[in-house]
């Protein structure tokens, strides 16, 4: 089916246009309808691009391509080049779905100044769609930063405890990460000789002329720390649980679920294929730091009493899987990371959504002050259990998480052997904190504090306003868990075309093309 407009550009611009429209003093019902269009359309276009993703496409090619000149093409080689390949298409789809769920959840929430709230959320959504639709690295970065001011204001105005501190800390960390990765990208741009930020042009130029080992090491180092900070790599993670704990739930969903995938996606799509030798040099360090994410932060997550903080730490812990997958430098690892990102994005945003729903019923995030909620809210309990099982990666609701993690573990075993043991520990850790939370919140006797809360407030089960966004996430998660081929087939084709460079670098680390020779050859 041929759409009469460019689906990728529409997915970026429609939310932004909706946000602009919300500035007008519309009546609240009309404002919500406008917002709904802004959230629904990217999700529909996400499914559209997935369903119509061309099967005959060559591995290194992009579908739905289009180029727009913003005035810097001739001077700097920057143009808005949109397109999807097997790596970005699943994430584009996931961003649309999570955005829809976050938008629906925000619409039923009783936030103050709803127009501004929805408007800022739509700005975030437009940026997110842009991140995964951009072939041009400049715009990839640019769209990521779109969300920064919006996130800052949303956390500070509508956030919970410590919001002012959390908003500031988050923004400073994210800016540092973004600036470091920007330097990394500019380094690639200037040293490759392509005089363009276009990923395709860069790939071709580097395949032709190569990039010296020193440049690769510096560039990958900048990206490792830059993107690492953005994805909360241990030990630069402290902003994340704090920020997610303080942020309003829709923001946590979009940020932890989608925006943070920016960094991992940057590794899989850009850093590894362009800088294989640099990646090889940094890979051991990355492996160890990623294990820090899984083990250290996993243990911290177990120790949490605050439900939302626990979900936040849990999300940071799971990101470690993504990093070890990247550190394996193989197409198997990269494929696992992409699947994992989709699964994690859906499941972690589901958890954030549900824990806020729990909060609305218990009046607290402190798990010691809850208990026995299953009697009052059985449907919520069922959703929550499913989400917990999914995030553990159990086959069943968490099939997609399971495929992603399994692939990553296989890649780790191939690459580093014994390292798979501490990595597997992560599964046990997430089972411990997840099931323990389940028990504390929903089962057992209600705590004294919760009983007292019930006296004053009627505790009811979740209504359709909260069920629909949860179902949107859950159905997508289970659907792709049952039918992962729908994502892996285009993914495989792209990885087969792009990743031989990476695996070649790994297989022959001593060849002059990649080793530490010719320090300033270029």
């Amino acid at each position: 089916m041929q759409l009469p407009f460019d689906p990728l550009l529409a997915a970026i611009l429609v939310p932004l246009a909706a946000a602009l429209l919300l500035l007008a003093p519309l009546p609240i019902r009309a404002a919500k309808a406008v917002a709904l269009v802004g959230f629904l359309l990217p999700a529909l276009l996400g499914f559209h691009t997935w369903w119509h993703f061309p099967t005959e496409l060559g591995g290194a090619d992009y579908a739905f391509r289009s180029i727009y000149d913003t005035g810097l093409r001739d001077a700097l080689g920057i143009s808005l080049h949109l397109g999807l390949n097997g790596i970005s298409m699943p994430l584009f789809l996931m961003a649309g779905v999570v955005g829809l769920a976050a938008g629906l959840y925000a619409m039923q929430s009783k936030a103050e100044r709803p127009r501004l709230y929805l408007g800022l959320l739509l700005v975030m959504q437009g940026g997110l769609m842009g991140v995964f639709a951009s072939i041009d690295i400049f715009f990839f970065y640019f769209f990521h930063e779109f969300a920064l001011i919006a996130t800052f204001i949303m956390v500070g105005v509508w956030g919970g405890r410590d919001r002012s501190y959390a908003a500031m800390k988050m923004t400073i960390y994210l800016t540092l990460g973004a600036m470091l990765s920007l330097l990394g990208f500019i380094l690639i741009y200037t040293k490759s000789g392509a005089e363009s930020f276009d990923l395709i042009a860069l790939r071709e130029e580097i395949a032709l002329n190569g990039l010296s080992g020193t440049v690769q090491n510096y560039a990958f180092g900048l990206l490792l720390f830059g993107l690492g900070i953005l994805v909360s790599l241990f030990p630069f993670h402290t902003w994340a649980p704090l920020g997610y704990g303080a942020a309003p739930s829709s923001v946590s969903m979009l940020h932890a679920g989608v925006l943070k995938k920016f960094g991992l996606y940057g590794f899989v799509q850009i850093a590894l294929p362009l800088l294989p030798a640099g990646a090889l040099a940094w890979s051991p360090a990355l492996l160890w730091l990623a294990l820090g994410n899984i083990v250290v932060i996993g243990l911290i997550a177990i120790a949490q009493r605050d439900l939302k903080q626990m979900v936040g730490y849990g999300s940071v812990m799971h990101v470690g899987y993504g990093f070890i997958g990247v550190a394996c430098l193989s197409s198997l690892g990269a494929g696992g990371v992409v699947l994992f990102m989709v699964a994690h994005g859906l499941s972690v945003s589901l958890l954030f959504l549900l824990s806020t729903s729990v909060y609305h019923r218990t009046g607290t995030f402190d798990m010691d002050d809850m208990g026995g909620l299953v009697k009052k809210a059985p449907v919520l309990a069922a959703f929550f259990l499913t989400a917990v099982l999914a995030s553990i990666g159990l086959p069943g609701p968490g099939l997609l998480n399971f495929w992603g993690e399994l692939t990553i573990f296989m890649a780790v075993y191939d690459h580093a052997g014994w390292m798979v043991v501490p990595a597997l520990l992560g599964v046990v850790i997430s089972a411990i904190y997840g099931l323990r939370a389940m028990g504390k919140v929903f089962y057992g006797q209600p705590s004294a504090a919760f009983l007292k809360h019930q006296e004053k407030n009627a505790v009811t089960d979740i209504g359709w306003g909260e069920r629909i966004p949860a179902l949107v996430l859950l159905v997508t998660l289970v659907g792709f868990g049952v039918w992962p081929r729908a994502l892996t087939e285009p993914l495989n084709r792209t990885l087969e075309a792009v990743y031989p460079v990476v695996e070649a670098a790994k297989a022959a680390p001593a060849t002059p093309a990649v080793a530490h020779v010719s320090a300033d050859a270029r």
Partner: protein
Amino acid sequence: MTIEQLQAAAASNTWSTIAPEIGLGVLALLLLVLEIVFPKKKHALIPTIAIIGQLGILLGLLINFSPAYLGSTSFNSLLQHSETGQYLRAFFLVCSILVSLLGVVALAKQRMPRIEFFHIVMVVTGAMMLLAQSANFLLLFVALETVTVGFYILVSYTRTNPLSLEAGLKYLVTGALSSALLLFGIVLLYGVAGNPAALGSTDNPMGYFGVRQFLAANPGDFLASVGIVLTLAGVAFKIGAVPFQIWIPDVYQGAPTPVTAFLAVASKTAGFAVLLGLVYVFQPYETLVVTTLSIMAGATILFGNLAALTQHNVKRLLGLSGVSHAGYLLLGVIATLSVPDAAGAVWFYLFAYLLASFAVFGVMTHVAGPNDAEQDLDHYADFAKKRPYLAGVLAIGLGSLAGIPPLAGFMGKLLVFMAAFKAGLYPLLAIAVVGVVISIYYYFGWMKAAYFSTWRPPLPEGEPEPAVPASTPVSFPMGLALGALAAASVVFGLYQGPFAAWLLSR
């Protein structure tokens, strides 16, 4: 000089080439006449006439943007007409119009003579326009002095406010010092380049071209080196680069807000226009220039950002953050020595800086109470609820100053950083990144003050509530101007279009 040379010089006095400057001067004088002619009741019309007149001159300039005399010199090579010069003329005119608009709002809060303000602003603008096109040290100095003398008056304009008077005095003393340094430098260069016995000596040792020729023929001349450093130091005062930034916080605080904006944007741009011209002249002494400017740039970025961190007065905060912007811009200036298109990056940065700064200063003019020098972060409490429109403009302006996509300020930073990358200024880039991250704290701290409702400790018994000045309502033209500035910050962040392409090819 022979008679023939004098005749040739006289013949090159094509007055039509400086029609916009003459127009501004005539308009400025006309205002004074109107003040006498008009009855008192109609004096409120005069600022409108001033603004409309300036808009007319701007329009005329834009219509005739590429006149036949572009690329040539006039007035015996005092002026060099170029497209960059045309662009800067328009740039300073836009600044002048915006300052006049802000002046209308700010002067209404003071019991002050009104008309002279607009008069002086226009005279200063005319001098800046000449400065941007000068190709001769003599004209450079005269134009720069006209600008500085105008600012002496403007800075201490609210003469009932002791802080304003103090600021004026400080600006006078430091300004005189900087003029002296500049003059020393110019005289040294004039002396060595005009020495008939010297190799490569020139018969026009005040002209840029002659000096450059002499420097190229005499590498490593000691007196010339001293002259270069002194000249650069004199200009560094104008842009507020470390170690000549000492006047900035006090003067920015004491000056009336529109004048602060004028200093921050137009005066800084004029400084950079001069600096870019001088860097070209001094190119034969590249190592010296790069060393001097690199030390300045690194120190400027760090000092500006660190000093701004602790400020509570928003005018001081903007002043010190402006110091750091001068540092980033110096990166671009240094890069012009090896990367030709870096100058375009500097111009774009300054353009984005104009949009963002005037948006922020415009909001400040409305928030300010009768005491213009005391503008505190606390005055912005609950600002987003009380004045959503102004708060939106403020957020966009501050975001753009901080360099956050999708705003124009980010594009400016990106272009400058890319130029610096191409020139290989890696240590300075590292400092710049640190600076940008630090700046997030104070720019977003301001946004925090405006948007977040923060808990305040209850006041002790009997203590009066600290007075927050009531912000003035926004007039329609002012609202339009602020909205246009904010919208332009967004649009030029997203779509730079042919404008940026044109600017980058300068």
